[in-house]
Every structure is written in C-alpha cells, then in structure tokens.
C-alpha cells in the first residue's frame, strides 16, 4: 500500500513538474509574442500593413506560413540586415528593397520572430534569443 502511495506521489510530482515547466515556457512565449506585436506595430506595420497584408506587388505580405517555416533560420538576418533579392511569397514575385534595422537587439528580433511565426496562420511556437544569435552569425 505504502508503495502505491509513494509511487503515485512521485508520479504526481513529476507530472506537475513537467506541467509547470511547460506553462512557464508558454508564459515566456506569450510574453515574447506580446512584445513582438508591439515591435511589429512600431517597426514593420508601415510597410507590411496592419493585417500583414503587404502593399500590392511592392511589399510582400507576412501571411505565407510556408515561406516563414522554410526560411525560419533566415528571418533574423532579413530583419536585421534587410533584404534585396527576388523572392516568391504567396505565389507572387517581389523584388523591392527592405531596409536594414540594425539597431534591433537579438532579443527584439526573437520577439518579432515569435510574433510573426505564431500569427496570421502560422503556429511555430517559441524561438529564443540564443537561436537568433546563432542565426545572425550565419547571415550572408
């Protein structure tokens, strides 16, 4: 009997631990998301639009979940250094220039990425500052 109680207790402790761990992670992600949204409004919305719809064939929308997934490791470089190449987004071609925003810190960029990749049809979860730092080392 004592064994049962003990193992039940252990099990309970472990599940609570996992559960609270997960929710702490979730809380962090929600915080990143909210800050990322604020940064988006300040730094990106003028070009990419209130609903991330872009502007005609000048500025691409940020609603192409496949593009965002495929290029996840490049997002940090795009945000920090800008972009000036032909790209296909939502099956349309874009080739205007996005300016660099080199004053953004790695944590800002991580927050923006969490926002981008968990809104407008994407649901990719957390992205932390360490990942951004690593991505930025590999920018072309």
């Amino acid at each position: 009997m004592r064994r049962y109680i003990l193992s039940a207790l252990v099990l309970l402790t472990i599940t609570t631990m996992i559960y609270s761990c997960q929710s702490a992670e979730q809380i962090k992600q929600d915080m990143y998301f909210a800050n990322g949204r604020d940064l988006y409004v300040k730094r990106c919305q003028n070009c990419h639009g209130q609903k991330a719809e872009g502007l005609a064939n000048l500025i691409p929308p940020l609603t192409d979940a496949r593009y965002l997934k495929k290029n996840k490791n490049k997002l940090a470089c795009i945000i920090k250094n800008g972009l000036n190449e032909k790209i296909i987004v939502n099956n349309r071609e874009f080739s205007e220039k996005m300016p660099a925003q080199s004053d953004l810190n790695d944590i800002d960029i991580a927050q923006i990425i969490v926002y981008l990749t968990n809104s407008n049809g994407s649901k990719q979860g957390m992205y932390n500052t360490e990942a951004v730092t690593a991505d930025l080392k590999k920018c072309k």
Partner: protein
Amino acid sequence: MRHLPLRILLLFCAVLLVFNSCTKERKLPIYGNRDTKIVKHADGSSSIDTVYQTIPDFTFLNQDSVKINNNTFKNKVYVADFFFTSCPSICPIMHRNLKKVYEDFKGNPEVMFLSHTIDYKYDTPHILKKYAAKLGVDDKKWQFAYGKRNDIYTIAEKSYLVAVQEDSTEKGSYVHQGWLILIDKDRKMRGIYDGTDSKAVEKLGKDIPTLLAEYKK
C-alpha cells in the same frame, strides 16, 4: 410672463438654426494664402474681391517620360502628394490609403491623382513606372511626376504647402510631410488630409463628391 418673449426668441433661433443647417449645402473650405484685389465695374463703381492662392503653371515628366502640365488636370479635381519610391517610413502607408480612394473613383474621369517624387537623383521616370505598375495604378488616372529639384521643392513648399527637404541624418535621406492635398478645377486647394491616417483619408474620399457637386450647376 416677462420671460415669454425671450423663450419665443430662443425657439425661433433654434428653428432657424435647424433649417439653416439643413438647407445650406456643404461646401469645402478654400485653403492657402489669400489676397484682395479691387475690381472696377462697368458703371464706374468698384468693389473688393478675394483672390485665393492657386497652383501655378508647372511642367514635369510622368512615369512614361511624357510631359505633363496643368492641362493634364484641366476640368479635373485631383489629389496631390510628395513621396519617393525608396521611402522607408510613411510613404507606404500614404499610398496604401490613397490607393483605396483611387479604387473608389476608378470609374470617374473627373478625378485624378498626382504624386511628385522628391528623390530627383534616383526616381527617374523609369523607376516611377516600375513603382506605379507594382502598386497596381499604372494608368493615366494616377500620374507620377519627376522634375528638377528646385521645381519640385518650390511647388511643394510654396504652392501645396508641404514641407520637404533632403536630410542626411534621416534614413533614406529625405524628410517630408505626408499630406494629401485636394485641388479643385480652378487650381485652388480645397482639402488637406494626413495620408498616414486612414480616417483622414476616408474623409478625403467623402469630400471629393462634395467638391464635384459644386460644378454640377
């Protein structure tokens, strides 16, 4: 009893006000500097007339490298603004908002649009052409104007009353205001709207028919 006349008077005023505001048609204000001039009449008498500021003669090249001037906008009301194609800040918002107005008046030949570039170094007609095409507005209705630095900057500041300047500290190296200016068929300024404010631009969309109605008599 003593107060009755006063009440009647007040009531009378109220009725008058209501009727007045109902019957009087709304007219847009006239903006810009104004002057007075003395008009001599045939019978020898004279009176004083107000002279409103008007848009002076201009000639620019459009996105097709074709000359445009005031005659291009003859018998039209038009919306003018100042921008540049590589603008990182307010221009995308201005043109996103203005494009909605453009769509709303697509079928109305009396309405036109005129965007002047203030980047006289880079925004040559061929760049403007690409921009117009990508914005999806490349037709005669929306003209993009390229001109000499002084011509554009002077007409911006002296005539449309929009501040523009080159600035090496600003990203993209130009600073300018995001006003959209509504010009009537007599070259007068009839509306000034903040192009970055979608509510203000909605008002522009409502004011255009009001302005056109003035000419329907």
